[in-house]
């Protein structure tokens, strides 16, 4: 009997020592009383050094460790409490803690047994812990578990009671023994030897009792573990187990004992392999298995197993410590599911994003192609419209019957309306495409406004309206801005005002709002006494294709684009527009635009020159590839009385320029072989000619205009060509050229504006040698004043001979300097009078005229002389 007890004691001890999980017992003061090998491994300290020391000192968080063991004493047990062991060499080991109190046979608490599980190698454990923290409901699970543990504890307590009872039985047995001792003592005298023998036996029994207590103690430690601990013999049969094993399998101790260890798992073959591994290697750690409970429930466990040996060192079986990781597995699975779900959600989101991006690209493309389509269509429509309107205008000039005139006028008006619409659409397309840019050039505001209002005079008179113009004289004369766009804005507003007003007046007001050193802000307002706009429509009228009422277009025509364009033209320039209106009283549209001040001279433009019969003999080269447009330009220029040559492309134009001299070139931009830009570049750079070049362009985008200016064009005219504009531009340039040579002409505007001199003869004679020409001119300039004074003197002193000779001399150089033979005849007349000595009333006049001619000629020649000098 004693030997079995001793054997059992040794057996439990070896189980404890074989466990890979640190097992520690501590007393109620937190001092370590006992431990297994695993603890010495994890702390790196020897048994002797550990025993009696503070349990909490071996953790990174001693306070928390203290709380944990206090918990154990307070509640009887604690489970899966995460703590970190600190190894002597500072290596840290994360562990989960299961602890429970153990009691002596009287049920008094002797201390706590703590089983720690090294979790540092379980990668998932960290994640589980994070999951533990993140997922609150886990607490509920834990509480449930705790309740289950309470039940387990009760079971344990019951077990302990059972043991207690057995201990009591032992005590009773001891009492029996003592009684027998007493009996034997009574017989001591008789049986001293027997007594001695008994005393010896008593001693032996006491020793055994102590051993039994130790055995009981070790056993209670094992039973107190919340992790199932069981032993298997070499044939795979379960030989012993603790209470946790019973709880987890749901089987009774009897049923488990002797049963095949592998049958408790879902994968018996794997279990067998692991079991064989234990024998082969001596131990196995953290091997995952699924345990099948009696009721069929599956429980995930991690297995630590190691062999244990008898006194002779022979392997007698395996001790296995399993840990229920059902909850961890559950968390793991949930986590996995969550990850999968999150990944799925991300995928869906990405797909949606891709779809949205594709949709955006599609939409952008659609907008772009819409703009391109609008732009192309407008352009394509404009070219034939150009011809239709142009030829209609030409036809209208002919003798027509009243009816024909009416029809043609109708065609022209419709055409004009269509062009306005197309221009509007193009403008809007440009705004949409962000291509609308504004020029910053000096211009005269007052002039610009009055020129524009001039256009409405006929219309306003026709409708019997009054046009009132109020212009603030404080406004600086020259401003920097975009006069073309300003025109467009005011044109739109005034034409609306005229359209919707049937009686009363239209007031155009221009006022200086504020002014600093560099900028001015000017308010323009157009007020009418027309039909007015409903209050709730006031905001809408600035939207595309909107009119105040849907009936408006039926009654008054128009597309509803005008005000939209006005808004788009004002706002990007930093201005704002507002409208006030009262039904049947009228409307006021006002806008404020900023302009920069400048000292620069405004370019003279926008002033339409009335046809001037004296300006003929202008040689124009039209470079244009479309036959219809060629014909139209020729017709227009013929009407002006200008000479006109046509070249179908830039290359042909250059050929023509080489053989003939022109006053001005009208250049289409888009042509085959050589376009307008290339041709202009060639003329400016390679031919070194400064001849004025006006671009003919269908699409007045600013990009094109910058390009025009960059290659050296002087101006542009938009198609369809406005006849008056064309005329005034041509005349403007031709005049400029003349003015350069003949500033005198401007001082005597009553004079016939014809150049007196012509260096053609001199050119031919000298073969255009500038040096010789200059010599000739300077001689003329020296001699002529003497001749003039002689002539005047002769007349004054009635010295007919002197007069005759002076005039004679004068006359001979007339032809050299290209002075018209009319004047030569005039001179001859004077000569005749002088020669015949007949006093005539006409002589003084003729002499004066001759003097004028000569003075003018001298001025002209001085200019020529300087030009020649400068060009050398």
């Amino acid at each position: 009997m004693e030997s079995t007890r001793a054997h059992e004691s040794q057996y439990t001890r070896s189980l404890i020592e074989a466990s890979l999980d640190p097992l520690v017992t501590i007393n109620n003061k937190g001092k370590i009383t006992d431990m297994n090998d695993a603890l010495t491994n994890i702390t790196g300290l020897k048994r002797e050094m550990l025993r009696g020391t503070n349990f909490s000192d071996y953790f990174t968080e001693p306070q928390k460790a203290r709380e944990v063991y206090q918990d154990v004493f307070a509640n009887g047990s604690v489970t899966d409490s995460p703590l970190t062991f600190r190894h002597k060499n500072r290596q840290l080991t994360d562990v989960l803690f299961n602890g429970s109190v153990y009691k002596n046979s009287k049920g008094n608490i002797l201390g706590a047994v703590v089983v720690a599980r090294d979790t540092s190698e379980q990668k998932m454990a960290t994640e589980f812990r994070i999951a533990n923290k993140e997922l609150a409901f886990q607490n509920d699970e834990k509480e449930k578990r705790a309740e289950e543990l309470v039940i387990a504890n009760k079971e344990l307590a019951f077990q302990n009671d059972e043991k207690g009872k057995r201990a009591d039985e032992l005590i009773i047995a001891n009492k029996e023994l003592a009684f027998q001792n007493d009996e034997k003592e009574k017989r001591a005298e008789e049986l001293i030897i027997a007594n001695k023998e008994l005393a010896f036996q008593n001693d032996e029994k006491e020793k055994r009792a102590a051993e039994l207590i130790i055995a009981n103690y070790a056993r209670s430690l094992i039973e107190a573990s919340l992790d199932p601990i069981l032993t298997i013999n070499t044939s795979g049969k379960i030989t012993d187990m603790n209470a946790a094993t019973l709880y987890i399998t749901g089987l009774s101790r009897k049923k488990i004992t002797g049963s095949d260890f592998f049958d408790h798992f879902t994968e018996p073959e794997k279990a067998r392999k692991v079991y064989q591994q234990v024998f082969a290697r001596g131990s196995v750690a953290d091997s995952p298995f699924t345990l099948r409970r009696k009721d069929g429930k599956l429980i995930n466990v991690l297995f630590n197993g190691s062999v244990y040996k008898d006194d002779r060192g022979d392997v007698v079986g395996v001790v296995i410590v399993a840990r229920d990781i059902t909850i961890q597995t559950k968390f793991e699975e949930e986590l996995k599911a969550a990850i999968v779900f999150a990944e799925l959600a991300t995928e869906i989101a990405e797909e949606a994003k891709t779809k949205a991006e594709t949709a955006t690209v599609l939409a952008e493309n659609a907008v772009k192609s819409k703009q391109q389509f609008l732009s192309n269509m407008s352009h394509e429509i404009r070219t034939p419209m150009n011809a239709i309107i142009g030829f209609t205008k030409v036809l209208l000039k002919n003798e027509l019957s009243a009816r024909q005139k009416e029809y043609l006028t109708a065609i022209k008006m419709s055409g004009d309306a269509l062009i306005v619409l197309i221009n509007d659409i193009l403008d809007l397309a440009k705004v949409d495409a962000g291509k609308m840019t504004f020029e910053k050039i000096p211009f005269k505001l007052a002039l610009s406004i009055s020129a524009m209002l001039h256009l409405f005079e006929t219309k306003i008179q026709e409708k019997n309206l009054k046009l009132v113009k109020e212009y603030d004289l404080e406004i600086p004369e020259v401003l920097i801005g975009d006069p073309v766009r300003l025109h467009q804005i005011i044109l739109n507003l005034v034409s609306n005002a005229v359209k919707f007003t049937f009686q009363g007046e239209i007031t155009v007001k221009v006022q200086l709002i504020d002014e600093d050193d560099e900028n001015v802000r000017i308010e323009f307002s157009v007020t009418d006494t027309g039909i007015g706009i409903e209050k709730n429509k006031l905001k809408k009228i600035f939207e595309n294709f909107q009119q105040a009422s849907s009936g408006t277009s039926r009654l008054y025509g128009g597309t509803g684009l005008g005000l939209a364009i006005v808004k788009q033209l004002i706002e990007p320039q930093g201005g704002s527009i507002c409208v006030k209106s009262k039904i049947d009283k009228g409307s006021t549209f006002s806008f404020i635009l900023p302009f920069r001040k400048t000292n620069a001279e405004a370019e003279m433009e926008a002033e339409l020159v009335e046809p001037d019969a004296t300006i003929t003999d202008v040689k124009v080269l039209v470079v244009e590839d479309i036959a219809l447009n060629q014909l139209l330009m020729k017709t227009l220029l013929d009407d002006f009385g200008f000479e006109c040559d046509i070249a179908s492309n830039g290359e042909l134009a250059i050929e023509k320029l080489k053989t003939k001299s022109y006053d001005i070139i009208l250049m289409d931009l888009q042509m085959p072989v050589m376009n307008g830009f290339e041709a202009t570049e060639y003329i400016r750079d390679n031919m070194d000619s400064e001849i004025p070049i006006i671009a003919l362009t269908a699409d007045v985008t600013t990009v094109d205009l910058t390009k025009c200016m960059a290659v050296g064009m002087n101006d542009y005219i938009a198609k369809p060509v406005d006849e008056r504009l064309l005329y005034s531009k041509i005349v403007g340039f031709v005049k400029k050229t003349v003015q350069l040579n003949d500033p005198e002409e401007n001082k005597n505007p009553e004079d016939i504006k014809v150049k007196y001199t012509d260096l053609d003869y001199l050119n031919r004679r000298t073969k255009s040698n500038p040096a010789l020409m200059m010599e000739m001119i300077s001689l003329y300039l020296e001699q002529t004043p003497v001749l003039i004074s002689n002539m005047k003197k002769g007349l004054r002193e009635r010295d007919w001979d002197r007069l005759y000779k002076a005039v004679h001399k004068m006359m001979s150089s007339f032809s050299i300097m290209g002075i018209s033979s009319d004047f030569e005849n005039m001179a001859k007349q004077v000569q005749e009078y002088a020669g015949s000595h007949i006093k005539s009333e006409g002589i003084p006049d003729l002499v004066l005229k001759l003097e004028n001619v000569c003075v003018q000629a001298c001025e002209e020649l001085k200019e020529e002389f300087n030009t020649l000098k400068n060009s050398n």
Partner: protein
Amino acid sequence: MDNKNKIKLFLVDDDAVYLKLLEIEFFQNADFSIETFSTGEKCIESLSHNPDVIILDYKLDDIDRNAMNGIETLDKIKAFNSEIPVVMLSAQDRIEVAINCMHHKAFDYIVKSETAFIRLQHTITNIFHTQKIEKALNWYMEKM
């Protein structure tokens, strides 16, 4: 080209512009060594330069009334060397003036006009042609 081989031309006109024009034209159109004079007096002074042809304006006193006129200058030239051919030039297209010039032994009389220069060229060609013929005639006369 050597100046000696060139035809030495005297141009005399008080109209500086016309004078210059003539000079330019002769320069450009043929090989002439040209001397220009604004008055008859200056021309006479330079006769020692042996001009081959003299082109002389009829009116030399238009500006300076005291100046020597064309006919007087012509007479002086002829007095100096009657062999020097003188072509008279004038804006006057009156036949009397022309006849008067011819009486004073001018080689030809040309009216100032646009074609004047071409006619001058013809005349100069004629002068040399005539001189050549005269020389040949003289040579034959001597032989006979």
